[in-house]
């Protein structure tokens, strides 16, 4: 399989990378190692670490940071931006629809079963229209590239996409270590993101809120692997970072416990999943949530971002219908394509997939983080057969996609510089406006030949540049 190399066309250096190439070529090896060590020390000092589920070991592991940036030209980015915003609008239109009249189901464009029997579909919010009709306020859209103009959406994240702190910190650290690079290249800034996020949250304050809204970030707590990100964003936005125990419901509103007594909260940017939000409405054993929160939400006393139930739009089964949503709600042609996807609950698809397991990528419908998936071409016969048994047991739990020729980016490795596969997650903000900062999180599979970029599977991150005109 051949891969699109984002920096080199044969031996020719593509235009956006011209200056970076000089930088790499003139960089002595010992200088590079020194800088790499410096970057690591900076990350550790700032405290950007992550915990890998169930691995034990060092609770303060770093996500490997690669100093070689990934670059987009302005024209490339504009197209991506239009496509991402279009997709974000369609996803929110879909959510408004399925919690209302469900026209798309009535029109027969999406099977009712996929919506109403979806685990993420919340009956508790049927008929509740959140402020401005926005359900998903931060949408992370995972993109891969396979050619010069070929981008595909791998998945949508409509609940609580993480990783934006890396986008911001990667940039911060690159600017601190290599200011000259930023003087020589004209790079669009990304550091307005926290400000835009705060404005987005304030723009969806509930009707009952008449003053300037009080926003908070709700975290499961400091043992959560993304806790650093939660506190980082709270800090940059100047809002309180709360846990469930800090909030309580009284009368028509939600309050937080402060040293001066209760203070009203208007907008909650939650980083905990729906089932844990309110033990009276969802899982009764949840210690993370706030009893009674959903009543206040439904009566317009507080906004929750993303809105409960937003997850129904981003599951891997619904994913195949997003291009249909674009056409149905917006009357437009999708700018970004989906990856061809076989759904194993259809007989034809099932037969095709089972006959070609060795060539395909198979994923659980509700899986995430690179767990519970099969990468056919990278697996042994035994692994494939073991996975086949899992599929046979519950076909409707799986989808399959072709193994994509993920583009590569030059990456610093032991011996110097070598191509490694990358993906991209930009973060789209939806409130009274739809906004996207020029950049995103580039994840890179550091192991040679690996196509899995998840940090839990040995992936790293890169700074992502969008050049200005």
């Amino acid at each position: 399989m051949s891969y699109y190399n984002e920096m080199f066309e044969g031996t020719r250096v593509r235009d956006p990378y011209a200056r970076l190439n000089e930088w790499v070529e003139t960089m002595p090896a010992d200088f590079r190692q020194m800088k790499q060590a410096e970057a690591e020390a900076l990350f550790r000092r700032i405290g950007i670490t992550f915990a890998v589920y169930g691995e034990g070991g060092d609770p303060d592991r770093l996500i490997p940071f690669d100093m070689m940036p990934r670059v987009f030209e302005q024209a490339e980015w504009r197209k991506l931006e239009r496509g991402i915003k279009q997709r974000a609008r369609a996803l929110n239109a879909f959510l408004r629809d399925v919690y209302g009249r469900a026209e798309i189901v009535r029109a027969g464009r999406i099977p009712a079963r996929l919506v109403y029997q979806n685990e993420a579909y919340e009956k508790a919010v049927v008929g509740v229209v959140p402020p401005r009709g926005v359900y998903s306020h931060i949408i992370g859209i995972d993109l891969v590239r396979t050619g010069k103009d070929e981008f595909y959406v791998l998945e949508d994240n409509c609940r609580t996409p993480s990783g934006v702190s890396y986008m911001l910190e990667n940039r911060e650290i690159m600017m601190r270590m290599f200011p000259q690079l930023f003087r020589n290249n004209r790079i669009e800034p990304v550091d307005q993101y926290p400000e835009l996020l705060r404005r987005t949250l304030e723009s969806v304050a509930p009707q009952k809120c008449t003053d300037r809204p009080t926003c908070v970030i709700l975290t499961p707590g400091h043992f959560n692997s993304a806790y650093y990100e939660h506190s980082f964003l709270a800090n940059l936005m100047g809002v309180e970072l709360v846990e469930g125990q800090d909030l309580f419901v009284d009368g028509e509103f939600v309050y937080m416990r402060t040293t001066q007594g209760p203070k009203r909260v208007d907008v909650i940017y939650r980083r905990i999943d729906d089932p844990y939000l309110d033990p009276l409405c969802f899982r009764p054993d949840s210690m993370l949530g706030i009893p009674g929160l959903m009543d206040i939400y439904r009566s317009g006393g507080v906004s929750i971002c993303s809105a409960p139930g937003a997850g129904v739009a981003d599951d891997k089964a619904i994913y195949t219908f997003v291009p249909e949503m674009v056409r149905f709600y917006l009357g437009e042609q999708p700018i970004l394509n989906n990856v061809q996807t076989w759904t194993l609950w259809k007989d034809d698809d099932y037969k095709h997939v089972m006959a070609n397991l060795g060539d395909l990528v198979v994923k659980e419908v509700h899986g995430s983080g690179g767990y519970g998936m099969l990468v056919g071409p990278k697996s042994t016969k035994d692994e494939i057969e073991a996975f086949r048994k899992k599929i046979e047991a519950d076909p409707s739990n799986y989808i399959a996609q072709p193994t994509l020729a993920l583009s590569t980016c030059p990456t610093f490795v032991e011996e110097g510089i070598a191509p490694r596969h990358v993906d991209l997650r930009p973060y789209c903000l939806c409130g009274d406006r739809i906004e996207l900062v020029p950049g995103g999180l580039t994840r890179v599979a550091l192991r040679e030949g690996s196509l899995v970029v998840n940090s839990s599977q040995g992936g790293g991150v890169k700074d992502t540049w969008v050049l200005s005109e």
Partner: protein
Amino acid sequence: MLSRTATNLFWMGRHLERAETAARLLDVGQRITLLPNTETGYQNEWNSLLQASGTSDLFAEKYGEITQEKIEEFIFFDRDNPSSVFSCIEKARESGRIVRTALTSEVWDALNVAYQELRRISKTPRDKLDTASLTDFTTGHTATVRGAINSTQLRNDGWHFMHLGYGLERADATARLLDVKYFVLLPRIEFVGSGLDTYQWQVILRALSAHRAYHWAYGGDVSAGRVADFLILNGESPRSLITSLYEAVWHLEGLAKRYGETAPTAARDKSREVLTALQARDIDMIFDEGLHEFLSWFIGEIGTISVRVHEDYLLGGA
């Protein structure tokens, strides 16, 4: 400010001060055992130190017989000992991490560096480490954190809570260190006034980094009355009971003023009351009352103030 944030800031201050106390305790013990002293040997002194810090049972359970190495391990590195330097720095850093948004990057940096360094040291073979450098490490890093707090933090309620933690913990710690003296000498009352007695008072001064300050303040010989006066009633001495308590009162007044008349002030009122009671005493009265009895009273009162702080501010009025 979130009550939980205030709680963490308060305990961050307390744990940092407690880490320092543990390190100083180790230093006191080390110096006392260097003395060619009583026939029972050094075990007795170490045990007194453990008793003063309230961890003697825990030590006996886990380590049995006392040796210098075991003591060092226990007071400095042992995470099963809630008052060890490692436990305290780890807890302070954990609190800091939880309220990361309430700290400046300088403070977080100093705190995190202390923790990372400590983790590194904890992996060093113990025979490559000496007690003095461990104590210096701790007092050095805690001073850096405190310096970062004082030079970069906003003078807001969070700042008051941190310092309140520091103040109350320091008052408690100095009282306990003084009490060590009582425990050490308890079995041998005839030593009072002897050369050994004087030396032990000097050790206490040293452990509190106060031996030079003492000479500036009093000049002349070290005597029990003067040292006790210096560490209990002298308002210039940075670690004396009265100074520490005064700081706690000051920060409670700051909170009361900031939060206005509707906020509860039980902690402030109680701390004022204890301060007044302390100011009414002179050192002879304290010795007449019995040093140990006085210190027990004082430690109890500090505990009560902590409880009031909790009730006034840290429950969140729900």
